[in-house]
């Protein structure tokens, strides 16, 4: 019954395939808002394997879920920088790091942390990313210069609006969970 890690690995391998990687990386917004989240999702799927294999490690180092959350956030913030995207396209070592860090250092810890976190931390994470996405959206849309060597300004603006619309969806979610008391319906 360990199917999900296999699916996760297959997803990761599919994303590594040069035609798939090239296609997704050819457009700025699909690079950041499709390839990168898919890499994290592959990690979410594979997490069970590591949790079963190294239960001691996770209980010792990620007891209350906060360290995993922190690691996830650091990796995600790192990959939100225009410069890192550029480097991933120019330096093979950084590209390799992308395919390792997003699944294993972001996806796996997130899966391990999420059930351990209190609703305060869960909401804090969403609020943090909402603010980050609004800021990045602002940066990418209104930056007077081209931020990436590899992508045109129009792609940069598109990515900026992608950030804003994702932030909007997260705001809707936050409002929804703020006003809805699920215990009333259960």
């Amino acid at each position, binding site marked *: 019954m360990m199917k999900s890690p296999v699916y996760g690995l297959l997803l990761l391998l599919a994303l590594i395939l040069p035609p798939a990687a090239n296609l997704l990386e050819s457009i700025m917004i699909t690079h950041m808002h499709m390839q990168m989240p898919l890499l994290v999702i592959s990690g979410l799927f594979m997490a069970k394997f590591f949790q079963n294999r190294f239960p001691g490690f996770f209980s010792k180092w990620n007891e209350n879920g906060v360290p995993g959350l922190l690691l996830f956030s650091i990796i995600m913030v790192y990959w939100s920088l225009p410069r890192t995207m550029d480097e991933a396209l120019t330096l093979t070592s950084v590209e390799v790091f992308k395919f390792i860090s997003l699944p294993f250092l972001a996806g796996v810890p997130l899966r391990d942390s999420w059930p351990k976190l209190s609703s305060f931390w869960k909401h804090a994470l969403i609020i943090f990313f909402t603010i980050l996405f609004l800021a990045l959206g602002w940066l990418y849309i209104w930056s007077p210069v081209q931020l990436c060597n590899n992508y045109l300004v*129009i792609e940069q*603006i598109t990515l900026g*609006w992608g950030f804003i619309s994702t932030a*909007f969806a997260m705001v*809707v979610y936050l409002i*929804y969970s703020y006003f809805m008391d699920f215990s009333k*319906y*259960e």
Partner: protein
Amino acid sequence: METVIKQSGKTQVFKDKANKVMGISLEDAKLTKSYLSVAFLAILLGGILGLLQGLNRAGMLELPAWLNYYQVLTAHGLLLVVVLSAFFTIGYFYAGLSHTLGGLLPKVRKMAWIGFWMKVFGFVLAVIPILMNEASVMYTFYPPMAASPVFYIGLVFIVLGVWMCAFGSFINVASWRKKNPGQHIPILSFFATGVFVLLFFGSIPVAIEVFTIIPWAFGWVETINVMVARTLFWAFGHTLVNIWYLTAVSAWYVIVPKVIGGRRWNDLLTRIVVIALVIMNITGGFHHQIIDPGISEPVKYMHVFMSLAIGFPSLMTAYAMFAVFERTARKKGGRGLVGWYKKLPWGDVRFLAPFIAMAAFIPAGAGGIVQSTNQLNQVVHNTMWIVGHFHLTLGMSVVMTFFGLSYWLIPYVSKRVLTPQINKLGVIQTIIWTLGMIIMSGAMHWVGLLGSPRRTSYSTYFDNATALSWDPYLFFLAIGGTLLMIGVLMQVYAVFYLMFFAPKGNTEFPIAEVEEDEAPTPRWTERWGLWVVCMIVLVGMAYVIPLVDFIVNAPPGSPPYKTW
């Protein structure tokens, strides 16, 4: 493990009983009767205009000088696509909300009435310029063709009226949930919630479009971005199509199994179909724009996937429906691989009409998939094929379901009963309508493949041989249209007879139960806020790339055109 909750509690049982004994409250009944009356008056007027149009398009009837083809086309489209569908959907679901949630809240009823009059007012405003030939822009009212500003102001009121009804339903459902903790929203109200979520979110883009058109139509701004307006229109236009469809689907899942004396399909899967249709629908608008210039090929390619994804829940529905039919017929002693079909109540219009509607969705859905495919779309896009397609989907799958519903819904709200004579009339009406639509829509599909254009009045193009070769098919269009007109008259007669003259009595609101041994439905299906967030994310995925492109790389805008 997902926590699960019981299907029904004491409160629900009590309300069900109260509803069964007393029927719908008079005030709620009046609301639904008013909505349905407008819907069927719209079909009467729209049908007459449709016949005029069909005869004119076949070259068999000259319209008087004061009435042109495009005027008739606009009014026909608006009456049937906006008025009929919106009023029927709202009337039907408000009766459903009233029945399954133990009556409408007074506040909600008031909202629905305000919505009713806003829509009627908006519609009157929109019709005046159409009658004056100032708004012959057709149902697809996007630029560069510009109507009189009054037309668009009328549309704003229609949208606001729809929003009133959407929020009314949300308030009623939320209040019910608070009073019935731990219970699932009754299935018909679940469908209603899905439909109203789509109505609200689907009409946001068209509201934005209309607000950018109004200053342009007044001449306050000189030009408009055509691609943005078209995209906003189709985000709404496609969603509207699926709102009627989801309304029909609700009847297929919930009502029809009860009519045939069976039980409904798996509750969880039914709810997943609703959720999937709600999440994925709005982005389908792009497949109406496959041949639009200005959208890059990769984006169109992505949208082929997004559109075909919508087909998946429909395939689930097709499977579910036939499974329910077979299961019910076998319980009644049906035998053989397909011999069980004999056990279905073919003489009951409440089953026959929705059944033919479902069967029609097989070619209609297949045609939809054809049109979502880039290359095939190039062949048929601006031809009569498309007109044939939406007469099959709206005119058969949806409208015949609505007709089938009317034979119990109207007696239910007017506290009367369906008589055997009217049932017989309904069966004959169903047969006439089916023949009419097959002939008309079939001819439209075929002549479309031969190149006959849509949105174009009759012309032989200076007696060009190809254009003349379309004529025989266009005759079929006229024959089908005439049969449909007979169908309209019979249907409208049945509706008003059942509303005002049929014998008094109690008619049941038929809602099928789930199978007894079914596993309880998991609680996550109730998290509507999450589905809305998923929908927003998907809409973002679909629209951010092209819209930024249209706006940042905008070509010079278009001034308003009056082509008629």
